[in-house]
């Protein structure tokens, strides 16, 4: 089964994407609002979903919203921000068990209205957000930002990117900065919200069962008449590396966290990018990868070690958890394995295995309403309208030379190491 999207333009810069499937017991609706990632707005963007979740014009408080969600058979609401390259995406998602299980025709429409109210009809006082809600959510956001230290692994990855991309917007932390909070209030945040609603590209994605009635309902409730929509530029990915930047951070921890950041300069729009995906998988994609075999299985240096590609910035990252004193030993093995990739020292079997792994994870997208929604949004964001089958085909067509060529583009930029 191939997934098909029916794309309907609802207005300037706002699209409805319909993906029909009757495979699931639930339906899912997402709003993706896309902003440029910049220092000025990052904290305000992060604060918006928190404040919007507090209440809308029909349901004024969290208590009412949450009780409504329970009544709607535990509809699952999730609001968040995340960065995709140098774009900051505010996402609102609601998933609900299909109305056919409850003999309630109007139920699907009620859930759709609820999400629409959360996005477009926030609770207001004196033509601005609630002072109290904004104050409380600033406190919560502060805890959230400070809480990034709690997971040492993801903290180390974020720190490596921060150091590596110092002069780029990509270095920004998705949830913003504590020092920005004092200057944000209910008035300027509401002004920002109006801006966001008035000039951002918006993708609405529906996955599940639908009929004419439901579609016209979504269309009617999301019609917008907007003039100027902001233009979002493509990230810069070419950088000269003068020398490798080594950052060491001391914390009272039991395990060292090693993160190596590489530039590749291979844009995802080019065919060679598929070669990079496979190179990264052979190097550190799974338990069959070179890093797993050499760092973990042969030398018992780590429990986790792997690599990944950051699409919009063409960065490759390797991260592992090791003993403090094994820094030199581990980085040496990593360098050797990358050298092997550059020299074509990998088997045809390795290539086939990686292609299969990528194929399996791509096909699994079809088994999750959320992943389907993310897939079609990602297509929109990258102007890539290949079907899943075409994506798989392009992976299949990668040959040994492409992988070697891609590996030769991998250049070490920054090493981050957390230790005691």
């Amino acid at each position: 089964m191939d997934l098909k999207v029916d794309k309907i333009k609802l207005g300037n810069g706002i699209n409805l994407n319909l993906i029909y499937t009757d495979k699931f017991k639930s339906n899912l609706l997402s709003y993706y609002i896309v902003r440029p990632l910049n220092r000025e707005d990052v904290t305000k963007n992060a604060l918006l979903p928190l404040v919007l979740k507090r209440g809308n014009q029909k349901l004024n408080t969290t208590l009412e919203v949450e009780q409504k969600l329970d009544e709607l058979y535990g509809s699952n609401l999730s609001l968040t921000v995340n960065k995709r390259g140098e774009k900051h995406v505010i996402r609102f998602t609601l998933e609900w068990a299909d109305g056919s299980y409850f003999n309630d025709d109007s139920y699907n429409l009620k859930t759709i209205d609820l999400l629409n109210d959360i996005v477009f009809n926030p609770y207001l006082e004196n033509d601005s957000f609630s002072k109290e809600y904004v104050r409380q959510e600033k406190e919560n956001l502060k805890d959230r930002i400070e809480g990034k230290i709690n997971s040492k692994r993801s903290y180390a990855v974020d720190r490596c990117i921060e150091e590596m991309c110092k002069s780029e917007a990509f270095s920004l932390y998705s949830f913003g900065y504590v020092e920005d909070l004092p200057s944000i209030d209910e008035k300027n945040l509401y002004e920002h919200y109006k801006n966001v609603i008035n000039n951002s590209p918006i993708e609405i994605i529906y996955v599940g069962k639908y009929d004419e009635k439901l579609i016209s309902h979504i269309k009617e409730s999301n019609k917008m008449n907007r003039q100027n929509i902001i233009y979002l530029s493509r990230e810069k990915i070419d950088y000269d590396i003068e020398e490798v930047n080594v950052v060491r951070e001391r914390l009272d921890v039991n395990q060292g966290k090693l993160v190596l950041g590489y530039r590749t300069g291979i844009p995802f729009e080019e065919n060679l990018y598929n070669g990079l995906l496979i190179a990264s998988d052979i190097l550190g994609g799974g338990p069959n990868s070179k890093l797993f075999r050499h760092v973990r299985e042969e030398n018992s240096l780590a429990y986790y070690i792997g690599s990944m590609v950051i699409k919009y910035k063409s960065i490759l990252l390797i991260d592992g958890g090791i003993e403090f004193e094994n820094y030199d030993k581990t980085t040496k093995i990593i360098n050797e394995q990358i050298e092997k990739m550059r020299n074509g020292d990998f088997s045809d079997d390795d290539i086939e295995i990686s292609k299969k792994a990528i194929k399996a994870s791509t096909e699994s997208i079809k088994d999750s309403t959320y992943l389907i929604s993310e897939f079609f949004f990602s297509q929109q964001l990258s102007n890539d309208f290949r079907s899943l089958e075409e994506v798989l085909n392009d992976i299949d067509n990668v040959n040994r030379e492409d992988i070697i060529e891609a590996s030769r583009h991998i250049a070490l930029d920054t090493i981050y190491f957390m230790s005691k």
Partner: protein
Amino acid sequence: MNTIVNSRIDEKVLYEKLDSGLKIFFMPKPGFSKKYAVFSTNYGSIDNNFIPIGEEENLVVPEGIAHFLEHKLFEEEDEALFEKFSRLGASVNAFTNFNQTSYLFSTTDNFYESLELLVKFVQSPYLTDENVEKEKGIISQEIKMYDDDPGWRVFFNCLRSMYVNHPIRIDIAGTVESINTITKELLYKAYNTFYNPSNMVLFIIGDLSFEKIIEVVKSSEKKFEKKEENIKRIYTDEPKEINEKFIEEKMVTSTPLFYIGFKDSDLNLMGKDAVKKDLITNIILDLLFSPSSLFYNELYNEGLITSNFGAYFTGKRTYGHSLVIGESHKPKIVYEKVLNLIDKRGEEVLKLEDFNRIKNKNLGNFLMGLNSIEFIANNFVDLYFDDFIILDYLDVMEEIQYNDILKRFKNHFTRGNVVLSIINPI
């Protein structure tokens, strides 16, 4: 072959018991790309004292041995197992928890070949002194990773303050010291006792044929000489009372983390009774602490808790506890407020209309869970070892009466069985 059908949720499970004693369950999922198999033994970190098969005396094994064994079963004499699965396009993994060790793979292709591999590798351990030694370095790093995780530490400290003797106090992976005393011989003893087919279950889900599955398993399973239906596990008596009221530790973290634990004394239930108690307790916790509760909203508005606040009950035959979890700058005040809440009369804090609302929510959540192959597989096995089939879940849910909630609230949530665990920033 037997079939269990639940037409209301439009799902069914097929079932077969092989001569070896192994039970196979299969849930068809037409239209799904992913296929998933999990091969589990009813053997987890709490089974650390037992009579090895063929012996008379009990044996207390080092902490973390079930998990160590899980790692070692991936060892093969010839080619690395990961490579074999990868070549088929399948992704293999395993986990150990308090009660079970599970080996699983997911794939979109070559399912039956992968199934053969799974059955064969779990049933053919290859342990040498050398490869046992090698694993100690890897598992030490896994233990140290958890040692740096404040969320994990606050949880285990809570268990240790609730339980006096019960092995649930023990970290699943053990300690760096304990795993260093593990030997090949001990691993084989544990293996031979607990990896007997009659102590195991194989669950498969996806767009597949059950006839073919049975054929593959029959031709790849090992023939065991001794069928052990009755494994002797030894549990030291656990008092009803808690171990210590309060436990605190300092770590690299931002906001203090807390766990409030209520130790259960209504134990030794299996099957439907166990599931019913589980559901009743979780409904109470939802009524008291979920984002749609008054308590949550009051504390949230006062800035005492963040949205990282929640509660759940978990239990098995020999233990059980309700946990109220969150982060707060004033965890002791949250604790006091929780105690004040549970001091009240059930009728006052648990309203009938709220009870009905939470039942709606549970119904929808269960239906949505059935979208996920992983959710079904993991819960199927977990409930199976409690002697319960997941398809009957909704029926038990609907049997629950408001009175059940009031009764359980009174007995389980008291000042006598509660503990507080806190991790403070350094």
